[in-house]
């Protein structure tokens, strides 16, 4: 991460603009125990109350880190039922990083967020149809499989 991803200008700009970056050593206590840290790099997205919403383990290249962080931010909004903000964050991820590995999960979460905010099941079926068309082998297509029947 230090050699490739964190020096990237786009990564620096995104993090400085959108997040509070906090870096601690893997054995720093009490955080390592509180977060049950087992391996590095581990990246965790927290809300402003310190609650965890996404955890990833392992290296990310620059063009995958930013969409992964956007997904984490969207999950934070989703977890707190702030669906409008979740959807705008997911829209940005899908529009700006269409080739990212984070897109299938974003499409799934987009469908669920629309359903949770409207109680209309149609977005769930649309999410499955998009996933099936674009990412037939994705685990998120499999998770959305039941929605084909809606």
């Amino acid at each position, binding site marked *: *991460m*230090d050699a490739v991803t*964190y*020096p990237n*200008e786009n*990564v*620096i700009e995104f*993090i*400085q603009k*959108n*997040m*509070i*970056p*906090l*870096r*601690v*050593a*893997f054995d*720093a206590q009490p*955080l*390592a125990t509180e*977060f049950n*840290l087992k391996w*590095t*790099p*581990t*990246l*965790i*997205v*927290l*809300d*402003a*109350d*310190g609650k965890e*919403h996404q955890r990833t383990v392992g290296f990310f290249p620059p063009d995958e880190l930013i969409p992964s*962080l956007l997904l*984490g*931010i969207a999950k*934070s909004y989703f977890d707190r039922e702030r669906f409008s903000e979740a959807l705008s964050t997911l829209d940005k991820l899908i529009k700006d990083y269409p080739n990212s590995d984070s897109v299938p999960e974003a499409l799934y979460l987009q469908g669920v967020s629309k359903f949770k905010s409207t109680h209309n099941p149609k977005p769930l079926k649309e999410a499955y149809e998009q996933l099936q068309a674009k990412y037939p082998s994705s685990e998120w297509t499999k998770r959305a499989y039941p929605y084909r029947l809606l």
Partner: protein
Amino acid sequence: MAKTIKWETKMDVALARAKAENKHILLDFFNPG
């Protein structure tokens, strides 16, 4: 001078900034080697 990420190193400082700036925190556990 090259731009770099300006990392916080204390959770309490990061939480205070996150609340004040209405942002999420990126917590990176790393191996300093």
